[in-house]
């Protein structure tokens, strides 16, 4: 992880104001696999709070939460990826994102860090190589030896 931390520091200060969110990704883990979300969509990260179940919703849509007065739907990312459900623990987090005016919370196993991935290190996913369904993955980011799967929020949120 030390490597990535250095990468963050290397951003030129003069670009800081206008470009603080460019090419930066918030990474989180699901079953040991690392994923990234474009940081410009992330609003905040909260710990799991009480979720109100709603009827008629797909199973990954766990319900709604009250975030200081605003009502926000939450999606369990594990279930969205068709993985086993896992009881929430102290590491479980909700990443509140805003995408195209929709505010949604994403329940993830754990949140890692914010990292900078330069444009040239991002490539399209090599479909064949990945074992799990990759329809929610837009790009692959490479940091040294590590690989980050960058989420396609549009598909993640709206694909039926």
């Amino acid at each position, binding site marked *: 992880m030390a490597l990535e931390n250095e990468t963050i520091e290397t951003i030129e200060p003069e670009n800081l104001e206008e470009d603080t969110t460019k090419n930066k990704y918030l990474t989180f883990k699901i079953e040991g696999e690392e994923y990234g979300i474009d940081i410009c969509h992330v609003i905040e990260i909260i710990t799991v709070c009480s979720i109100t179940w709603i009827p008629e919703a797909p199973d990954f849509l766990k319900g*709604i939460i*009250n975030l200081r007065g605003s009502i926000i739907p939450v999606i369990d990312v594990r279930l969205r990826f068709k993985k086993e459900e896992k009881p929430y623990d102290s590491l479980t987090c909700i990443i509140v994102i805003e995408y195209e005016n929709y*505010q*949604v919370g994403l329940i993830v196993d754990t949140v890692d860090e914010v990292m900078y991935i330069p444009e040239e290190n991002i490539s399209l996913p090599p479909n064949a190589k990945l074992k799990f369904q990759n329809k929610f993955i837009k790009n692959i980011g490479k940091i040294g030896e590590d690989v980050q799967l960058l989420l396609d929020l549009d598909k993640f949120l709206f694909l039926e």
Partner: protein
Amino acid sequence: MADFSRESMLDMFIYEMNQLVEQLEQLIIQCEDGYSMDDINEIFRIMHTIKGSAAMMLYDDMSKTAHAIEDLFYYLREENPSDIDYSKLTDIVLEGVDFIKSELARIESGDESVSDPTELISKIKGYLGELKGETGVSAKEEKTSKPAKQEKSAASSNEKKVENEENKEAEPEGSKHFLAKVFFEDGSEMENVRAFTLLQNLKECIQNVKCNIEDLQDENSAEIVKKDGFVFSFSSLKSYDELVDMINDTIYLKSLDLQEGESHKYKALIRFEDGCEMENVRAFTVIHNLEGFASDITHEPTDVIDEGATEIIRENGFKFEFCAFKDYEGVYKILSQTVFLKELELEEITENVEKEDSKETPKADTNKKEEVQEQKQEEPVQAKAVKETEPQKPKASEPQKPKAPAAKKQAPTQHMISVNIGKLDQLLNLMGELVIAEAMTTQNPDLEGLELESFNKSARQLRKIINDVQDTVMSMRMVSLSTTFFKMHRIVRDMCKNLGKDVQLEVVGEETEVDKNIIEHLSDPLMHIIRNSVDHGIEMPEERAKVGKPEKGTVLLEARNSGGDVLIIVKDDGRGLDRNKIMEKAKKNGLLKKPESEYTDREVYQFIFHAGLSTNESVTNYSGRGVGMDVVVNNIETVGGTVTVESEEGEGTTNILKIPLTLAIIEGMLIKMGGAKYTIPISSIQETFKTKKDTIFTDPDGNEMLTLRGEVYNVVRLYDFFGAETEVKNIEDGVFIMLENEGRTVCLFVDELIGEQQVVVKTIPKYIKKIKGISGCTLLGNGDISLIIDVTGFFDK
């Protein structure tokens, strides 16, 4: 643009204009069958105000149009011709109103483009000419216009002398006072000279002439005469009719208003509300309004347009004197309608007494006035008289001008302010937060199990105050439906004209109040429904006569409160819906979801709200394309309402819109089911009860029912309905809640009741698709979310 900034006034202008136009439109529609004198006066007054305000804001087109209509009503008012085609008159006036409306909309949107009212104005004028029976006269007058010009030089030299002489002339015994107001044809040019010629012609038989223009030689006076008319007062021995004849002989005369009676001299002092700004412009408006019926207006400060005048008026009030033929009450009434008026003092100066005492030159008048100022005792007496006559005011058109009665009251202060709706919305949001915060505090888990007598007392007090505040906030947002309803008059009228139908719109309960946010969503649906009723429902007059119905069709528009909802009912006595036709269409469009025979009438009729389903064979101007009714449903559903339609073939159709009184805060019953708490709107709960197992039975399809006091009800188990988990499945462990919606009842089985609570409705995030049986959610005192149950969801499975 104007030489002084009008931007700050623009809002005010548009607001006032819209009010006036609305009032005007209602008035016109009201009296399509015949204009009473009161109506004519009212329309005239409104038009005059529009003209004045528009001119002040330099919107000439609007001002000219208003002017033309004003002329028209001026004629009506003065001549009161009996054989008028009211419907044609209404058409023309409405056209004018439409023009003003579109102008306003343009100004509002900041569109600088211009539309030309010339055609409209000439149409109005043409109609006025028709009324007067003067068609063709203008051509003759064209020829005589040239010699008139030559009179100018002669005229100018004599003019002043004449006036002075006549002023001094002693009044012969038995002479009467008159006030004449003359307008010349547009484009006749040199109006001042014409006015002068008129005076010359009358010279022989009139005395004591006073006119609104001091110097008729002045080039500018032509403009004044053109705009405001030539107003002069005089006394004469001749009779009214003789004078009218004489004046009517004047060439290029467009309209004449001759009034007989004593001219009263008045002295008035007006103070405007503090902080109303631009006192000088307001003063100018007052004077401008006066010009309609008063002459000899003098005011202090003399130059109201001057910036400095603002201060003077603010400090000392605005003083002015004028002569008018109206009596004290009339003048008082008009002046007290001034916008932002704080204080009005009006005195009548008894000039006649002076005349008898000492037949002096007019100069003495001014001296006397100062003395008269002291005799204030007259004023309160007069004022009382106004009050007493108040209740006897003819009811004529009371309901549709809600502002008028308030303005007429003795205390001439403004009781209304206009508030930005955004601020009200914010207030409502804060109110919602307050309600939640209160619940969070008083139901705080930390307090559980504590004996807190004085805390509870204070909490109750707080609760009470919050309730009051909430009621007040809600009532601030309540708007009566009358404006929305009266718009419908116009629609029905226009449609009747175009379709050749005879339909009357009956309006009941228009005073019912609904939240402002909801009203905005009502106008369109109502319009579509009414169009539908008139176009599809009501038959042609001949057809109606054939089936023995009165030729005049009726559409009833009714609003009434029903619990927490408002019902708006549109009922026509037309041919009703054709069930078979709708069924056929529905089948064609693939809307049927079960065997045809299983559809109830109600369900079939509901198809008309589907997009693309129109049973009208031909597309008309108004309907038949199948769009419209689906708009109705969409709009009504956005405000949480429902639409149902009932019909009886040959008897008519009834559309019922059920809309909530307010969107924001509802009384709810908190219930528990599974691990979650749900809120049911109290308004739909009939009763709650527990029952024994043996009252429940199941029909062959597996539908559960229960009997209560001999009646059978459907049972819905909430956990079943939502597919949720709960431990309470035994009928005897849980509670039943009887819910009612539009005459249908169902018994809902839940785990337990928690209690009543006021809840602030929040919408379910749009990311989640619409859930049947859930209408929104709310936050509980502990921050948990409770889903609000939509009762209608239980009825259509």
